[in-house]
């Protein structure tokens, strides 16, 4: 699949700032791109979209120059258009029928969605503002204001319930706030979308850590009919390497959190207490790893991403990889880290790796990646960022009776059901799925909110 041509900042320029890398279509480009859409009668892109957005419909509105209507079309099935237009892995583009033709690019659906958001947003709030909520007299508490929490809150508010979101941090957005760098999701877009969710009648209570500052029982006794756990899957798992506690070793979550909270100020104020060496090595192959590497590059560091899979197996989109390479991130593929090397002061100085290669180990024709004999080599590093696996933030289960988690510490849900093992408590998004990609989280949250809506309406009868 060829990538649609979307204007971006030049690499030389963007490594010196935290502004958004993709600039988005101009009006003319967007309308030209929209005109390329064949408007299939049986659109494959809609089938490919887990949220079922009316893609030909909103593209038609862009083509006609009615951007507000385009955004409304997107919002019918996707409340968080602003995020999706930037962070979605765009399965719709892979499903686009134009991929079947030679030398033709798929329609840039994601970029068009983003365009619809950017150009329709300013007008949209006046329309939704007047709608009042709480027609059903049911109260819902949503724990966590990450992508899943916002989708559930927005959807349930639209369904006429009174929704309150509880967020630990002083700023809402959860992972989108602390985990996604500003050059992929500007804070302004995040604030706009949160304002939109609030305009639907959702109340967001910051500085409330459910389990500590308020307990689940407290929420029920203050009249909430249902509680939705959308705590996400952001807790880092130890990577299993020895000497992980050496100085100069950070988890990617901490790294991104510190940079995100300080924002662009960090470049101007290098005195922040976060020592970053000249040679930064990021271990991992997911979005977290590539994001951390790209942030480190913006501090003028020499950055290498080390991972044990092939480049095709990395869990990031082609364009992100491409952009990272242009910015100067080097990728060391097929290298399995085995040990962290430290100096006398216990500061990390390198990583011992083994070279991997495909081999037919059992001579059964099963080709697998296995370490090459005597292939140990050391990659020099003075800062190591661990961007390995993460797990669900399910600490609340320890404090709540009857709330069960499964073997991978995800909230236990019965098959195809939104309810957890505890009465009137639901789980949505990564908290129930485990680490998942953005669009999966949104589609799960959408399903869960539909079920909760049914539950609340049934409960009232």
């Amino acid at each position, binding site marked *: 699949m060829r990538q649609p041509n979307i204007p971006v900042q030049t690499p030389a320029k963007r490594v010196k700032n935290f502004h958004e890398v993709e600039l988005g279509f101009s009006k003319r480009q967007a309308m030209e791109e929209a005109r390329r859409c064949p408007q299939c009668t049986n659109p494959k892109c809609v089938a490919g979209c887990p949220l079922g957005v009316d893609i030909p419909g909103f593209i038609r509105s862009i083509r006609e120059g009615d951007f507000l209507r385009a955004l409304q079309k997107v919002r019918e099935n996707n409340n968080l258009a602003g995020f999706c237009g930037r962070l979605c892995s765009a399965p719709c583009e892979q499903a686009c029928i134009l991929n079947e033709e030679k030398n033709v690019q798929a329609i840039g659906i994601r970029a068009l969605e983003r365009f619809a958001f950017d150009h329709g947003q300013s007008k949209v709030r006046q329309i939704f503002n007047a709608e009042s909520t709480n027609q059903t007299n049911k109260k819902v508490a949503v724990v966590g204001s990450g992508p899943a929490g916002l989708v559930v809150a927005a959807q349930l508010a639209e369904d006429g319930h009174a929704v309150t979101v509880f967020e*630990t*941090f*002083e700023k809402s957005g959860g992972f989108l706030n*602390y985990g996604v760098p500003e050059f992929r999701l500007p804070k302004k877009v995040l604030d706009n979308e949160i304002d939109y969710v609030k305009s639907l009648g959702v109340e967001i209570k*910051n*500085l409330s*850590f459910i389990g*500590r*500052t308020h307990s689940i029982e407290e929420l029920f006794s203050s009249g909430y009919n249902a509680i939705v756990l959308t705590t996400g899957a*952001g*807790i*880092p798992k*130890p990577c299993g390497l020895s000497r992980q*506690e*050496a*100085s100069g070793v950070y*988890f990617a*979550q*901490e790294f991104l*959190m*510190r940079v995100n*909270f*300080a*924002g662009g*100020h960090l470049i101007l104020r290098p*005195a*922040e*207490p976060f*020592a970053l060496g000249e040679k930064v090595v990021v271990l991992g192959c997911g979005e977290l790893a590539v994001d951390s590497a790209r942030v480190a590059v913006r501090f003028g560091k020499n950055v290498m991403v080390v991972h044990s899979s092939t480049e095709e197996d990395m869990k990031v989109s082609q364009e992100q990889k491409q952009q990272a390479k242009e910015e100067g991130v080097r990728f060391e593929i097929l290298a399995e880290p085995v040990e962290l090397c430290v100096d006398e002061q*216990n500061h990390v100085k390198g990583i011992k790796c083994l070279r991997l290669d495909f081999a037919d180990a059992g001579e059964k024709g099963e080709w697998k990646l296995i370490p090459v004999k005597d292939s140990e080599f050391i990659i020099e590093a003075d800062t190591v960022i*661990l961007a390995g696996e993460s797990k669900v*933030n399910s*600490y609340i289960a320890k404090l709540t009776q009857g709330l069960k988690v499964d073997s991978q510490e995800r909230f236990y849900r019965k098959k195809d059901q939104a309810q957890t093992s505890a009465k009137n408590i639901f789980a949505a998004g990564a908290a129930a799925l485990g680490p998942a990609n953005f669009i999966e989280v949104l589609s799960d949250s959408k399903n869960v909110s539909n079920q909760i809506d049914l539950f609340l309406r049934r409960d009232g009868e």
Partner: protein
Amino acid sequence: MFEILSKQIITDRVKRIDVKAPKIAQTAKPGQFVLVMPDDKTMRVSLPIAEVNLIKESITLIFCEDSPSLDRLGNLWIGDSLSAVIGPLGMPEAIVKESKVACVGYGIGIAAIMFLCRELRKNDNKVIGIIGGKTGKDIILEPQMRLTCQKIFLMTEDGTAGRKGYVTQALEEVVQNEKASLVYVAGPIEIIEEILIVARAQAVKTKVIIEPLTIDGMGICGTGQICVDGADTCVALDGPIFEAEKLDLENLRQKMNNFTK
């Protein structure tokens, strides 16, 4: 919200502030801590709740200005407001009843142990305070500790206040003469280690108050992951008070040293 009601400069780097935070003041339990953001451009930092004032609905924070965030916090004055105070966080400590408890605080660690002493006293325990520091200037909260504890040992390494000597000597005496059955200790990691050597020799149950090295209080940052009982544990969630036998001291020392570098 989060207005500074009073401020006291204890030494040139150690400051004490009372912050208005009604909800936290009402619900805080001993052992818990708060995350403080002096302004919205500064990294949040964890501080123990030293005291709670239910009449003024305020909490007392005592800190040494050893990081940029705490520097900012130290520069705020009465009437200024903090950007955010998140809490109370951490696992509340289960308070024992009717026994003899020794509480060891060293330097800034006295702030972490003060609230616990009060609650212990309320629950009919005999509380013996052992506070110490390098010099007399390092001793904070001395009058409050004198009021709270039935007996107090004041130790400085150069003899400028109280007795000349180490807190470990006082602990040995307390365990032998007073037959204390439980010891709480808070302070720098070197002191904790020395105290644990004494406690182990005297076979007395010891609990350690660890500084929660967290920037989010939920375990997402992964900074405060330490090894407890062979498993990776988040200090901010399951701590900050742990039983000494379950701690991997080597691992803990590493972590603490990284943070202070």
